[in-house]
């Protein structure tokens, strides 16, 4: 299949080149993943995998170097070593906090630094400043950039503009990996999400990501499924493996395991790795840790015993 | 030394948005039995209480209409279960309010329970009976479906104080409408106790709201409220038709009158499937048939 933006404009629109999505069936299929029963050894392995895939996040206006220090420490060692829990994949912070994170984590670090960028969260800013943010964050030591797309442009049908911006940000990233946030809650329909996913992948995304976490709904199982299916088709077309990150709204260990089930049964073993799958969360981590300890010790846990990130 | 125990008297509150609240006006009305002896006090709802109730009903309407017909039927059936379980309490309220004998009260409640079951069974059937696929002359698939009209105001008569309210409310909410019911002014206690039964029946808050008070005070505000879609007037009070219908013209509310005498509520006239149609809208949809 030819990249959809090179098709003659008069006779087709990008929508023609991307399959549509049936809402009822995709939601049914997504719900089926949540009904899998993950127990004992599989549960423990799954939960540890979830931790290793987590982008531990703080994105508050009131973030300070001190807060970021706590976050980094928690990401490096979420719980005492006896439980054998790996560090989180990354911390995710605002551009101004990147250099503090790098200072705390050192270089190299098992925990990567992801920075949001490009006018996060609204994206309603000029391209020039978006690129400058990106370059500075990358220059300050961010390994990964999580950019937002211009939803206004997308919904107005200016797909070329959306695509060009992604490509420009990718260029500005340098060596850093680019995650493209679609903000699925604002795109609303699964058809839009499918199209936006395709645009992002073709324009240079290394990862496609659901949400900023600032808009409801954020990540959901069906929306994630649609994006995984887009990744699958792209892999078959081009041989390139793109990663996926649901973010926002995943609060419980049970939910996170449902996402893992979905990745496993949609894309298979290759994507069950932090290199290709991440979960953006903050309160999720302690719920996962509580479940890990419960599985090991056999007792229901209390939040008092788990340090806050 | 006396062993007499002081009882804890019940406060009868308004039922709005799934909660039991006092009137914002802080007023109460005494309720008397047929011999004129005082029973208990009820809240005197004000126009602001009415306003809140309509807001709550509006907020609940969309979610209630979106539930499957099967689920609405199960909830109505559960209301019947709860009413059956608390029949003794309701019988006491009816007897002391209206002077009815225990047997009469129990007969009324049995019928109210069966009415709830009857209407519960309509939720997933009335669309088949009253809707249609229309054989139009052009190559179009054309169908007509009933949809709930929205927020409905219900005025109940004085007698039978429980049965009439149940018989009027059930056909309104089974299709997905939410309701604001004004209890009988003379015998409000059974209605307010019935609210407790609804509150324990898995009915989402706001789908049914029950207010006690003076109908005369509330009527003009109901008639003129721009966010009420329909009125079902079973009050049986002279002159209310005129008062209500004059007001309904402001936003073209649907208006239905139930003119049954007290005894008629006990017969088949009190269990009419066609009442469902008074508070539904029929939507017709066209779609071409072709490759």
């Amino acid at each position, binding site marked *: 299949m030819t990249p959809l933006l090179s098709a003659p404009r008069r006779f087709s629109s990008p929508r023609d080149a991307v399959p549509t999505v049936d809402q009822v069936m995709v939601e049914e299929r997504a719900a089926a993943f949540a*009904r899998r029963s993950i127990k004992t050894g599989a549960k423990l392995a799954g939960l540890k995998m979830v931790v290793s895939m987590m982008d531990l996040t703080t994105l508050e206006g009131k973030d300070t170097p001190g807060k970021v220090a706590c976050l980094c420490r928690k990401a490096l060692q979420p719980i005492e070593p006896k439980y054998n829990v790996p560090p989180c994949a990354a911390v995710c912070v605002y551009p101004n906090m990147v250099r503090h994170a790098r200072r705390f984590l050192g270089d190299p670090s098992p925990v990567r630094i992801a920075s949001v960028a490009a006018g996060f969260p609204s994206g309603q800013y000029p391209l*020039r400043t978006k690129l400058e943010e990106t370059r500075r964050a990358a220059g300050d030591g961010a390994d990964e950039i999580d950019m937002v797309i211009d939803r206004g442009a997308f919904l107005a049908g200016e797909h070329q503009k959306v695509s060009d911006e992604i490509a420009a940000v990718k*260029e500005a990233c340098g060596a850093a990996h680019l995650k493209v946030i679609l903000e699925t809650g604002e795109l609303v329909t699964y058809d839009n999400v499918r199209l936006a996913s395709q645009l992002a992948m073709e324009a240079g995304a290394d990862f496609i990501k659901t949400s900023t976490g600032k808009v409801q709904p954020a990540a959901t199982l069906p929306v994630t499924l649609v994006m995984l299916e887009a990744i699958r088709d792209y892999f078959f077309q081009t*041989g*390139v493996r793109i990663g996926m990150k649901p973010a926002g709204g995943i609060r419980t260990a049970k939910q996170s395991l449902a996402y893992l089930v979905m990745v496993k049964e949609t894309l*298979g073993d*290759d994507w069950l790795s932090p290199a290709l799958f991440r979960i953006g969360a903050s309160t999720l981590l302690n719920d996962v840790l509580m479940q890990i300890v419960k599985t090991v010790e056999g007792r229901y846990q209390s939040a008092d015993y788990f340090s806050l990130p | 030394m006396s062993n007499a125990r002081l009882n804890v008297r019940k406060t009868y509150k308004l039922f709005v948005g799934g909660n039991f609240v006092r009137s914002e006006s802080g007023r109460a009305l005494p309720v008397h039995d047929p011999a004129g002896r005082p029973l208990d006090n009820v809240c005197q709802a004000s126009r602001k209480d009415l306003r809140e109730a309509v807001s709550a009903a509006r907020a609940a309407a969309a979610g209630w209409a979106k539930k499957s017909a099967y689920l609405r039927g*199960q909830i109505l059936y559960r209301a019947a279960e709860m009413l059956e379980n608390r029949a003794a309490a309701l019988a006491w309220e009816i007897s002391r309010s209206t002077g009815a004998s225990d047997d009469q009260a129990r007969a009324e409640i049995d019928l109210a329970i069966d009415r709830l079951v009857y209407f519960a069974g309509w939720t997933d059937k009335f669309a088949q*009976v009253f809707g249609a696929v229309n054989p139009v002359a052009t190559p179009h698939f054309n169908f007509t479906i009933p949809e709930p009209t929205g927020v409905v105001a219900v005025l109940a008569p004085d007698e039978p104080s429980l049965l009439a309210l149940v018989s009027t409310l059930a056909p309104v909410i089974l299709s997905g409408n939410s309701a604001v019911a004004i209890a009988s002014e003379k015998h409000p206690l059974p209605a307010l106790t019935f609210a407790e039964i609804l509150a324990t029946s898995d009915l989402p808050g706001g789908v049914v709201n029950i207010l006690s008070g003076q109908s005369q005070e509330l009527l003009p505000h109901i008639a003129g409220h721009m966010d009420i879609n329909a009125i079902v007037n079973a009050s049986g009070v002279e002159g209310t038709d005129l008062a209500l219908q004059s007001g309904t013209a402001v936003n073209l509310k649907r208006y239905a009158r139930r003119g049954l005498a007290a005894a008629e509520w006990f017969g088949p006239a009190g269990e009419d499937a066609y009442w469902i149609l008074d508070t539904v809208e029929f939507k017709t949809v066209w779609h071409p048939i*072709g490759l």
Partner: protein
Amino acid sequence: MKSKTSPKLKARRAVTVLGPVAPRHAVKPVAPARDRRLKFGDRWEYAPAPETIPVKIDPRYELFIDGKFTAPHSGKYFDSINPATEQKLCEIAQGDSQDVDRAVKAARRAYETVWSRMPGRERGKYLFRVARIVQERARELAILETMDGGKPIKESRDFDVPMVAAHFFHHGGWADKLQYAFPGRTPRPLGVAGQIIPWNFPLLMAAWKIAPALACGNTVVLKPSKTTSITALHLARIFQEAGLPAGVVNIVTGPAETGSAIYHHPDVNKIAFTGSTEVGKLIARACAGTGKKLTLELGGKAANIILEDAALDQAVEGIISGIYFNQGHVCCAGSRLFAQESVFGTVIRKLRDRIQTLRVGDPLDKNTDVGAINSRAQLEKIRELVQCGIDEGAGVEQSECALPARGYWFRPTFLTNVTMSHRVAQEEIFGPVLAVMSFRTPEEALERANNTPYGLSAGVWTDKGSKIFKMTGQLRAGVVWANSYNKFDPASPFGGYKESGFGREGGRQGLSAYVSLS
């Protein structure tokens, strides 16, 4: 004309002004076409997740006649086994024509003296009670159904049992409203209904038969399938618990001969049968000239049609659920796939990947998607037909999953290079086997879909609304699913055209089978 500088160019210029040029990003690795396969391996294996709630199966079950459990006239019992383990579960009473006669007499007496005199409102309340008790005992019934028949616990728990409750609930509401279902007529019950049901949805089929019959004022003599009698007998206990008057429902277990005694009995007013077309024809012959009302719900060979403008991933999901749900033991299974040529390759690839993630195994494991084949006999039939397909030149694609050592199993399979002249495209396999064919135009798909003596169901997958209505309008099938498959509801009539039977179950139309109209 001022030339518009592309953002990319602007960015590149600006980089040098602001600072050192960032190192160029690494090129993403590209897998060559032949290596673009998904690996569904063991990187993260699910642990066993067995349903552990203990459930009591009696060592022996008697007949349920006239409100009581009684021994069979012959004193004989037959074994019921668990098809997933081949272990014996219990003994079931073997009813014969004498037992059937006793049951019909009880049903007649109950009809004349109690049930036909009871107002519809009261009859309905019994059905509501039954629905509520089924909901209370849901887990137990689901486990019994899985152990007796082999279907995954996930299905019996999430589909069969809730649907059973829904059928009783829905029909409870019709009992006092029948005059609305038949404008201009007065509906009256027929009397005694003889009902024979199959082994693929044992409890659900019992509900589909009993609920409308009772709602309309009839009494029932029901024979469950020989391999799956347990849940029907537990349903009988629920009838007792609900206080259903004795004789209103009678259950006579036994082999085919017992069923024959029912449909030959002179005092049965109506026969309802769900099963194979072959037996359906036998019954039709037996009922000829007797005045018995008859409805039959028989086999099918449904076409599932994917058009090029379908929402493809969801269409594939629909194909999968259409044929592998309940191990393909579904009369309305979408057993013939017609995929439009322009998307054929994509559909096959997605099917191939999808069957690898279907979990076949212990039906009591909550993660099992495809359970055991119901009996050895059925397994042999499936094997025979698939072999025939291979002999006739079809290609075979199967999932690669491991199978348990004991029990009756068949891996999800699809056959390619199939045409309408292959036996596997014509005969009902009743197993997890899909025959795949292509087509060029929608008219061709319709022609081929209708080119069968069966006519129970069909599926159409397309994003275009008008196409949906055109194609569903022309498919000669009693149930057509557009952009969906295997959807059931008590309010939705179900039944076939042609040799898939006649009569409908569910909805307003489903009531006609159980009333006479004057």
